[in-house]
């Protein structure tokens, strides 16, 4: 019985929504704006990232960084290498910072650099590898082919490390005393040739310095070096030579980016060095071994129109509520359905569902049309791997973007119910969704992130398929899509609860 009544109310609200031609036109307009503007923007933008790369192409075709000081010798077939790392850190008497703003914020570093053992397809930057290493902040890691990263024990102190090859399988071990070994994990490296280079390496992730001030974001990268000392280097079997060669694996240099791009990219890449005395190796190296995707997110770029569609949806949501108060139509509504909470719920469900489906269709359409255009304009592999509708990140982005749009529409409906007048309700919703972005792009980093967490603007993070990134101009990129949609959801539920409370309290 109850479900039947709920269904009746849903049917009634759906009839209301579809029977006002202007609202349907607004809904279609939102879809048209979303698709149209996205396609227009995809057609207009170009990039030369592939012609002027700051990355190398990894074994799976994705853009990666690959730089280190590598002390190696060839090995054929299976084998095991062991070493003890006695120290790891930045070299003493580092030259004073030659580039980068004084007051800039240092961004936290990832796990993709350190000192350890590696087996690699030659010394070419970007070739297939597996490594077990100690990262100064992230502890022991077992990594391969710029994508796989397994964690061992935490802490950057002295360690014994061991790497064993068995066919395509590489297993990493760690130990504190060289006697009791603990397995970190096993990775599969399919592209590793029968004869590979094996040895010890040192790398250091460049320091990223971020400066946000009114109107601009500047990002400085500073090359840094790590120095590590190794002893007890032993190659068990399969070693074809007895002498170790030292090489520097380097990356191509990228030109500085556009006008508000990077500043003080700073100096030449410091070369590494290797010293050996009585089996003790002191190696200095720099560079990162890991993913290096350009910050531009081609999924987000193909959804630019969402912002314009959102404005139309805000108007629709508000009107769906405030039209009830024009000419006291709300009385007719509550005469037909006296239980007001259920009316509000039915309105929210109908509007949310209709907008969700429309938004999903238009975002999907925008994506499908814009992607080939973007590829033509330079957003192509390897810098920008091809994204398809079935990629999990794309699916997530489209679903969450549609959810964001639907939630904003329902939020607007709730605000319309609370305020009962169109103009202030539309303005409130627009201001809450968009103004934080405009103001956020002018403020320093911390208040901006805070703004993105506490306002509806954080919902724009749903449009990003790539991981959160504080280095971009667009403020929402510093929060995760899930954090963004959670904020929007909280606002929507909060506004609905307030509207419900007021509907019950207020005479119609």
């Amino acid at each position: 019985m109850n479900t039947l009544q709920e269904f009746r109310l849903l049917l009634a609200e759906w009839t209301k929504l579809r029977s006002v031609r202007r609202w349907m036109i607004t809904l279609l307009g939102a879809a048209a704006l979303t698709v149209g503007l996205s396609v227009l923007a995809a057609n207009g933008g170009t990039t030369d990232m592939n012609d002027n790369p700051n990355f190398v192409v990894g074994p799976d075709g994705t853009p990666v960084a690959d730089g280190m000081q590598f002390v190696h010798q060839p090995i054929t077939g299976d084998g095991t290498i062991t070493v003890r790392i006695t120290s790891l850190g930045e070299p003493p008497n580092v030259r004073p910072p030659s580039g980068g703003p004084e007051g800039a914020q240092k961004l936290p570093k990832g796990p993709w650099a350190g000192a350890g053992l590696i087996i690699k397809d030659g010394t070419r930057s970007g070739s297939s590898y597996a490594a077990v290493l100690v990262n100064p902040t992230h502890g022991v890691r077992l990594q391969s082919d710029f994508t796989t990263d397994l964690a061992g024990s935490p802490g950057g102190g002295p360690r014994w490390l061991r790497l064993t090859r068995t066919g395509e399988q590489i297993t990493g071990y760690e130990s504190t005393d060289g006697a009791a070994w603990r397995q970190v994990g096993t990775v599969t490296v399919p592209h590793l040739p029968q004869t590979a280079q094996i040895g010890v390496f040192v790398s250091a992730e460049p320091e990223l310095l971020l400066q946000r001030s009114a109107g601009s974001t500047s990002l400085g990268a500073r090359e840094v070096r790590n120095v590590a000392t190794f002893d007890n280097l032993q190659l068990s079997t399969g070693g074809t030579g007895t002498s170790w060669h030292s090489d520097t694996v380097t990356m191509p240099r990228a030109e500085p980016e556009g006008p508000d791009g990077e500043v003080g990219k700073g100096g030449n890449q410091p070369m590494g060095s290797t010293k050996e005395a009585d089996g003790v190796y002191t190696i200095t190296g720099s560079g990162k071994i890991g993913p290096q995707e350009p910050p531009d997110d081609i999924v987000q770029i193909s959804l630019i129109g969402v912002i314009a569609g959102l404005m139309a949806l805000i108007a629709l949501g508000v009107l769906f509520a405030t039209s009830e108060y024009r000419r006291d139509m709300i009385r007719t509504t509550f005469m037909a359905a006296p239980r007001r909470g259920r009316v509000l719920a039915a309105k929210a469900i109908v509007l949310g569902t209709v907008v969700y489906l429309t938004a999903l269709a238009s975002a999907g359409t925008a994506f499908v049309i814009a992607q080939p255009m973007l590829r033509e304009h330079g957003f192509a592999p390897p810098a920008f791997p091809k994204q398809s509708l079935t990629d999990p990140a794309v699916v997530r982005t489209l679903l969450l973007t549609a959810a964001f749009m639907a939630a904003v529409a329902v939020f607007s409906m709730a605000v319309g119910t609370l305020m009962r007048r169109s103009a202030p309700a539309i303005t409130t919703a627009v201001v809450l969704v968009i103004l934080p972005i405009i103001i956020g792009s002018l403020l320093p980093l911390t208040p901006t992130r805070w703004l993105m967490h506490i306002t509806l603007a954080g919902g724009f993070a749903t449009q990003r398929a790539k991981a959160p990134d504080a280095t971009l101009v667009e403020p929402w990129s510093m929060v995760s899509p899930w954090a963004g949609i959670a904020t929007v959801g909280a606002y929507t539920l909060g506004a609905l609860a307030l509207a419900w409370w007021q509907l019950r309290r207020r005479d119609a």
Partner: protein
Amino acid sequence: MTRTLHAEWTKLRTVPSTGWLLLAAVTATVLVGYAATGTLDIQHCQAPWCYEDTTKLSLVGVRLGQAAIVILAVLAVTPEYGTKMIKTTLAATPDRLTVLASKLIVVTGVTLVAAVVGVLGSLLAARTVLPGNGFTSANGYPPLSLGDDLTMRAAVGTVLYLALIAVLGVGVGVLVRDTAGAVTTVLMLLYASPVLALLVSDPRWQHRIHRYSPMDAGLTIQTTRDIATTTHIGAWAGLGMLAAYAAAALVAAALVFRVRDA
């Protein structure tokens, strides 16, 4: 004309929302500016790598305050259509251009008053809060003052900006005749473009959007530092760009208003 002006002033004055919206415009402008300058910390921004444009930040609140002005301007027009009061208005003053001109003068007038209060309040608030965050003369930030030519220009420009926003609101209101439609149109025109500029990756397109969008172009006049590198259009040219939008809306409104049946 005087009588029509008096009539329009009486209409605007006797609607309770007018007072609230003007208050909201002033409060929003001052509070957001105060909050923005309050978050600054000299530790995160030191010369020569970083030089905050404190004047611009102290006036950042108009980006919110203008929303209230948009509602005010639109509500001076559209409810007359919603309630068919426009028929009464035009019966009292058959010359439609006089009606439009009177509405415009009255709305722009109250907006100018609110704008002057809001801008002065924002500068005063910033002047009070900035030294506490380390933005002192010793660090290269003399107190904000209208004696400074660029700050004066920013203040005057911001006041004019709000007045032009009011003109734009009235124009679009007459054209669209519907409250929700007019408010959405103006807000979309103002707010969507700066976000689009963040979204497009192509610097040429960013430049074009900043240059031709009414809000970005119009508020360029607030910039007092690194003008050469951070702006996309000249200060007065930017205000001119907004004026062109407002004028276009107004001319279209005047034409349509004359020939359309009430």
